[in-house]
Structures are given as C-alpha cells and as structure tokens.
C-alpha cells in the first residue's frame, strides 16, 4: 500500500439514503474507495449499483431527498462532509475536482459561444478577469491539447456547430483548465460512437500521463474500463464488492459477482451465460452481503453479516466470505 501522502481522495464507510414516498432507498452501504495521486481508478457496476451516488456524494451535489447517513470523505487531506458550501465552491467543485459528464449535448449552454463559456471558467476559477491574456493563451493551448483544430476560430462558434466527439473534447478541455487534482468522468464515452469513443479514450490516456491528474472513471462498460483504468472498484447494489488492479481483476476476479459479470459478457461462438435472479430493490435490500440471493457460493454467514474487505493478494481486496479460489 502506498503512503498516505499519495492519497488524494478517500471515501470511508459512506452510507447514503434516499427518502422517497415509497420508503428509504438504501443507495450506499458503507462504501470504501480511494484514489491516489496520478492514478486512474475505474468505478464499475450495473445501473442502480451506486456509482453515480458515490461520486455525487464526493462533490456534495446529491438531490434534496438524499441524506449522507454515515462515513467520511477526505480530499487532499480535508474533510469534505464538514466543509461549508462556500468553501466547497471556492476550493473543490470545478477546482480541486472537476466533472466530465456523460452527455456533452446537454452540458454546454446552447445560447453562448464556446469562447464565452471557456472565459467564464477562467474568470470564476482563476479569480482574474478575461483580460488576463496569459489565461486565454492557456485556454487556447488546452483546446490544442484536446486536438481541436484552429482553436481561435472555434471559440466564436456555438455548441451545436460541433460534432458529438468534438463537444466531448471541449468538455474535457474545460474540465482540465482549472488544473484540478481529480477529474470525475461519469460515463463520458457512453453516448459516443465506437470509433469516436476510441479516439476520446486515447486522448484521455495521453492527457492523464502528461498532466499527472487523477481520474475516477465511472462506466458500466467493462471493455472501456480495461482500456483506461489502472485499478478498478466493482460495485453491486450499493456495496463495494472488489478492488483490484485492472489486469488482475479481469484475469482472476476474486468476488463471485465480478466473476459472474465477466462471464455474462458476449463471447464469440460461446454459450450465453447470465446471472440468475434480478438486482434487488434497495428499498428492502437483502441483509448481509447484498449479492447473496444470486450467489452460487452463498452460506448462512452471507445472509446475516456484511463481509469485511479481505486482501487476498497485495492490492487486491474482496468483500466476500468465500472469495473465488485463485488459480496459480
């Protein structure tokens, strides 16, 4: 394990509930995850697993129905859960941590030119006016960085004049402009065509290396995660099930859920395998390990207690009483 100085983001025992008309949705159950400096960490899971809730908790942008019922979130050594809104806005949101959203179509303001929106970021985050030509020069450099051709002319154009891939390039440039320590990329290639997705992934890989920024990369696509993440955290029904280096996770998954998930991926010429049963309702989630009703190795313990995380190999944690035997 790396020293605590390298730790940029640390989420511990985070529990989040949504209070709805139908009852309390137990969206997150004591989730642990961390991101070290310069690291690209994947957060994967199916819909409803809590990926988005976890990252929204970090930025404290949860909807009003949500309550953070327990846990700690530390970013750069500071406690984000006790920080005032004012301080969050001044130092964290869009500054220390920025977000690349899923949908580049809805995330740019359609009535302002791209230039205006870039200047707004510089003004707000940089604390200096748009006249700061050094700042503007940086913005142009950043647009070149994300391979937008002739950036000066592009600044006069409106979002609808850009293609989907270019809009996502713009979003990435705008997220990186304030020199954040951490970028949260939330399904940021999901809306793109596969050939464009490959370009954006390659771009991100390059930028991350160059700028030494950390990324928390949220995706439901295991293939995409394998292309960009060094380490992956697997979530299921609001619990963190496994945390392992990317290559190891795909070769030797330790949690039965991860294994079943990998086996349900389409393989050419192979049989189709699915996971029996359905994802549980989080209004009344199963006791203990939330995967136990669908798990082939479930025992009496699993039905009663939530397992602690076990380190089955250095850097490979599994939250399971019966981790999958690793073959030598």
């Amino acid at each position, binding site marked *: 394990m790396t020293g605590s100085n390298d730790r940029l983001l640390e989420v511990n025992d985070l529990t989040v509930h949504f209070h709805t008309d139908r009852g309390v949705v137990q969206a997150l159950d004591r989730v642990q995850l961390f991101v070290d400096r310069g690291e690209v960490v994947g957060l994967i899971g199916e819909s409803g697993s809590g990926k988005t809730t976890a990252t929204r908790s970090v930025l404290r942008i949860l909807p009003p129905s949500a309550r953070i019922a327990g846990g700690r979130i530390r970013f750069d050594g500071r406690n984000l859960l006790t920080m005032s809104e004012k301080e969050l806005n001044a130092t964290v949101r869009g500054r220390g941590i920025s977000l690349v959203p899923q949908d580049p179509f809805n995330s740019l303001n359609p009535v302002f030119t791209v230039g205006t929106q870039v200047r707004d970021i510089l003004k707000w985050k940089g604390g200096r006016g748009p006249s700061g030509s050094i700042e503007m020069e940086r913005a142009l450099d950043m647009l070149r960085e994300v391979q937008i051709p002739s950036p000066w002319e592009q600044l006069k154009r409106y979002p609808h004049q850009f293609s989907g891939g270019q809009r996502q390039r713009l979003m990435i440039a705008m997220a990186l402009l304030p020199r954040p320590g951490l970028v949260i990329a939330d399904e940021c290639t999901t809306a793109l065509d*596969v050939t*464009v*997705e*490959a370009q954006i992934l390659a771009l991100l890989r390059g930028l991350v290396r160059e700028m030494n920024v950390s990324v928390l990369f949220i995706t439901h696509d*295991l*293939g995409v995660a394998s292309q960009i993440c060094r380490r992956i955290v697997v979530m299921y029904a609001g619990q963190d099930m496994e945390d392992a280096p990317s290559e190891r996770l795909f070769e030797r998954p330790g949690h039965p859920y991860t294994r079943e998930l990998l086996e*349900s*991926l*389409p393989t050419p010429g192979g049989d*189709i395998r699915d996971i029996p049963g359905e994802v549980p309702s989080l209004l009344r989630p199963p006791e203990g390990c939330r995967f136990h009703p669908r798990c082939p190795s479930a025992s009496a313990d699993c039905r009663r207690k939530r397992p602690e995380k076990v380190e089955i190999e250095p850097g490979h944690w599994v939250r399971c009483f019966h981790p999958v035997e690793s073959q030598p």
Partner: protein
Amino acid sequence: MTQPILDVHSLRKHFKGSGSFLEGKPRRVKALDGVTFQVLPGETFGVVGESGCGKSTLGKTLLGIYRPTEGEVRFKGRDITRLSKRASIRLKREIQYVYQDPGSSLDPMWKVRRILAEPLVIHTDLNRRAVRERVREMLAAVGLGEEHLSLYPHEFSGGQQRRLGLARILCLNPSLVVLDEPTSGLDVSVQATILKLFLDLKDRFDLTYIFISHNLSVVRMMCSRLAVMYAGRIVEMGETSALFERPIHPYTRLLISAIPMIGKKPGTGGEEAEGIGEPPNPESFPPGCRFWPRCPHEIEACRREVPDLRPGPDGRWIACHLNGGEG
C-alpha cells in the same frame, strides 16, 4: 439453393432535409442509398454501423413504415413495397418490428392483458376465449406469468419490458422479426438473459431475425451473416466469423479495431486503432465513396466514384475501389 425469405434490391430512402431560411433549398438526406442484400430463412442477419449510417431507416423501410424512394423489397418472392393498404396489414402479421425502446412503445395507460390482446383483435378473428389462451401462451413463452397480466408497463423492469414487447409480436406468429437495437440500454447481465431468450424463441417459433445493432460484440455472438453500413450504404457483407477475423474494408477494420475489449492492450490496433474524424452528418455526405475523408488508403477515384458492392474472397461482398487497400 435456398430461396431467400427477404430479397432487398437497390433500396433507397431519401428524406427532405431541414434546411433553413438563410441556406435556401433544403438538402436531401440520402439515408439509404442503394442497399442490396438477401436474408435466408432461419438465419440471424446482422446490420451494424454507427449513428446516422441508416440502419434503423433500413429496418423501418423494410417494413413499410417508411415508403422507399426507389428499389425493391421482396418477401417470400413478392414485392412488398407497393402493396394496397389491406395487403400490407395482412403482411404485418408475418414481418414484425421490435422497437429500440419497448418502454415507450407500450401504451402506458393499458394493462398487459389489453396490450397483448390488441394485435390479435386487429389481425385475427379469434374469439375472446382463444385470444385469452394465446396471450397466456405467449406470456409464458417469454418467461412472464399470469400475475403480470393486470400490471401496467411502468411496473416492469427494462428487461421485462423487452419480454413484453416480444410477447406482443409473437402473438401473431410472424416469420421474420426485425430487432432494432434490442439490447441497447440494458446492463450486461440482463442483456445476456434477453439474448438467451432470442435464441430460444427463434428455435421454438421458426423465426428469422434481422438484428440491427451498434454493439459489435453482441452481433458477433448472435449473427451468422452481417452487413456493415456506413453513411447509407453497405460497405462490407459476409459470414460473421470471416468478417471479424479478416475485415477487408477500411471502415470495417476501423470499426473492429475500435471495440474496447478486455485483454486488448490500448493503442495496439495498428494504423486503424484510433482513426480520424467522425461519421459524417447525413445532410452532407461526401461525394464518391463516403468513407474517403477518414480512409488511410484513399486515392483520387474514391473522391469521384461510388464503389459498387462487389464479390470478394470467401463469399464476401466489398464496396471499395482498392479492395481495402490490398490492390
């Protein structure tokens, strides 16, 4: 040789573009521009491509939801593009279309019982009892039970809604089913369950599928033959396994190398791996071969002449002046 169940010849579908007051005359959107292929009975024929390539327009034109601008669609030997209204209603029993988003294609105000009975009431003269029988039977076939009959569509999960959509079309006992992006928006574990169901239903009801998708891994697993579309045309067509193992058209090569796959080292797909540019806007397709602005092998002829779909090795069809840059 087996008679094809569906024989599509030089199919074109052009739409009037949006245009604007300042730009003057609206452009024509050539969503389908000369598409030719055959589907054999009992096979699963895949159609893949990126957004705007015309794959959904193709599905809808085959069914007569859109009237083709030009070309022929023969179903069991009969041209079905210019049928009378009555004949086309009768035909709809035999060819069915499964929409991308079953949630929005099921009437939210109706209970499942009524949703499933409706096609039978319109298309058959079965009595009420027989209709009830058939509805139960189909519901069971897709793995749902009687208890679901009195529920509304919103009470079902995404996977279950797809099952409902399937039960609804199976009621009429079709022979050809067009599946339009049948797994988009589903989680992988649910996707696997639904794919299994497709295979099971195909065997039980002797179905032929046209499987339209942008998900190449799913298509690779499900389809025996495959057409790759780009900007309104088929660029390559052939046996799925051959096409994936040795793609010939530069676009097919780009597409296959771009699939994010576990175990594939990033940035090792060779020259095609990342490619350049994006699929063109349907309102302004380039002249000649529509792929040339993104093609690493492009020559002068590519900018002028549209390459025909010609036979290539191992039963393949390719539309490329250079046969994929291999001379």
